[in-house]
């Protein structure tokens, strides 16, 4: 199932998932998933609603830990280290693996305080250093020009698309290596969606990006690799080009051509 696409293309593996099973209580949501996610590439997870792609994404920064009664077996390694290993540090993991949610969740604070939120918690108190981080993060998230004159205004005054880019900037402020995007554009209008996609394209060289999306055109436009999920199983994983032009599995083809889902 896991063909070594990276070896073919000579890419280093950032996230290595081996025989991952995941349960909500007694209900199994993920079945025996194995996947090597390459570094500094965009990997898209596609599939119909409820197929487990968001659940899978949330296993990568252990966000599922906060839900009562969840259980996992199998292995998730990031840079070779098992993130579910007993002594592993969740806080350090989440600093390394940033996440942006489907529904943008700016904190009811100023724009500045939103971005400075995690650097402050992680020990940066110096105002000058914080200002620098805020500016750098907003520039990287392509939001600086729109908000530089109103950093002390509430983040809730921003438009939906700006709020989502603010959340991306906030995630970047921690200096993560991996970015998990859970349908980041599904609640946005087409223009804001285009801006977010453009941003992802700009970030692809510096971060390992894993994006869940419902939108097949979006996956085709912005991702290098695509994984197709169906009913908790990974049906096929490969380069986006191959998945969208010559999928090996019939189910993948049916989904991509819109026959179901």
């Amino acid at each position: 199932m896991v063909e070594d696409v990276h070896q073919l293309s000579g890419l280093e593996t950032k996230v290595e998932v081996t025989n991952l099973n995941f349960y909500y209580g007694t209900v199994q949501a993920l079945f025996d998933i194995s996947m090597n996610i390459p570094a500094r590439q965009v990997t898209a997870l596609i599939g119909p609603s409820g197929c487990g792609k968001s659940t899978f994404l949330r296993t990568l920064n252990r966000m599922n830990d906060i839900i009562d009664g969840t259980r996992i077996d199998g292995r998730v390694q990031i840079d070779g280290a098992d993130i579910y290993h007993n002594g592993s540090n969740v806080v350090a993991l989440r600093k390394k693996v940033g996440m942006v949610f489907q529904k943008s969740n700016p904190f009811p604070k100023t724009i500045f305080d939103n971005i400075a939120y995690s650097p402050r918690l992680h020990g940066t108190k110096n105002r000058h250093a914080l200002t620098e981080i805020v500016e750098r993060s907003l520039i990287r998230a392509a939001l600086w020009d729109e908000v530089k004159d109103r950093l002390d205004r509430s983040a809730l005054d921003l438009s939906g698309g700006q709020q989502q880019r603010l959340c991306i900037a906030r995630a970047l402020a921690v200096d993560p290596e991996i970015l998990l995007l859970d349908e980041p554009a599904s609640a946005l209008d087409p223009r804001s969606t285009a801006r977010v996609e453009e941003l992802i394209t700009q970030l692809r060289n510096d971060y390992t990006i894993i994006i869940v999306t419902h939108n097949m055109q979006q996956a085709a436009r912005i991702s290098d690799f695509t994984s197709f999920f169906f009913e908790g199983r990974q049906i096929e994983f490969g380069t986006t080009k191959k998945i969208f032009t010559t999928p090996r599995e019939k189910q993948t083809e049916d989904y991509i051509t819109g026959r179901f889902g």
Partner: protein
Amino acid sequence: MKTKTSERIIYWLMRGVTYFIVLVIAYIILDIVWNGMPTISWKFLTEMPRHSGAEGGIFPAIIGTLVLVIGTIVVALPLGMATAIYLSEYARRGRFTGTIRLAIMTLAGVPSIVFGLFGLGLFVIFLHFGASIIAGALTLACLILPTIIVSSEEALLAVPKSLREGSLALGATKWETIRTNVLPYAIPGMLTGSILGIGRAAGETAPILLTVAAFYLPELPKSIFDQVMALPYHLYVLATQHPDAAKVRPMQYGTALVLIGLVLAVNLSAVLIRARIRKKYRW
């Protein structure tokens, strides 16, 4: 046609009931203000009572009630808020927390005289505090803990889950998340509910009757182990225990008016605090 008539009847019935309630409250308040105002004077507010409260002022009772309110806040607010934080943020939803919740609800419905007897047994007698400010404040704190816990928990649950997730995903620990991204938004609601409860406690008679309130004590307390007079109990004494209740009627009305004013002031402060913090944080 028929549905229209019944709609009308229902509408007027509900409207009538609402007006009736407002009318009753207005009557009580107006009666107290009307009959109490003539008694209110600077002397009445600042002087010691004389002749078993038939003359003089109610200064020690005002101070006593204020001290009890402050003591109750100091004890009950941290305890209640901590419990609410535990229940809403840490505890798993299960049979154990279900039982705790049921216990809190039940506690909220227990008659206040039972709290008074409990305070008498535990604080006054068993812990040897005697009838004292500390025993009274602790008893009142027990009385309003359920109110504080329930309203604080509601305020915490009103903070969207997405804010907690957003903070955790940035590498904040659980307590950092609660402290910086949940509590600041929940505090206005927590305080409002709690202070409204405390306003109620200020007017309670039964719990303090057995644990702190002095029948007649024309002096100020020197420590938290002293007894004090308190407005509700003083009112009770004037109205029912005084040999010539009819003669001291103006004193009763004056005391009632001061008590109502005090409760109103406490409630007003809750509204002001909320407005102030709301301006800072909104979502």
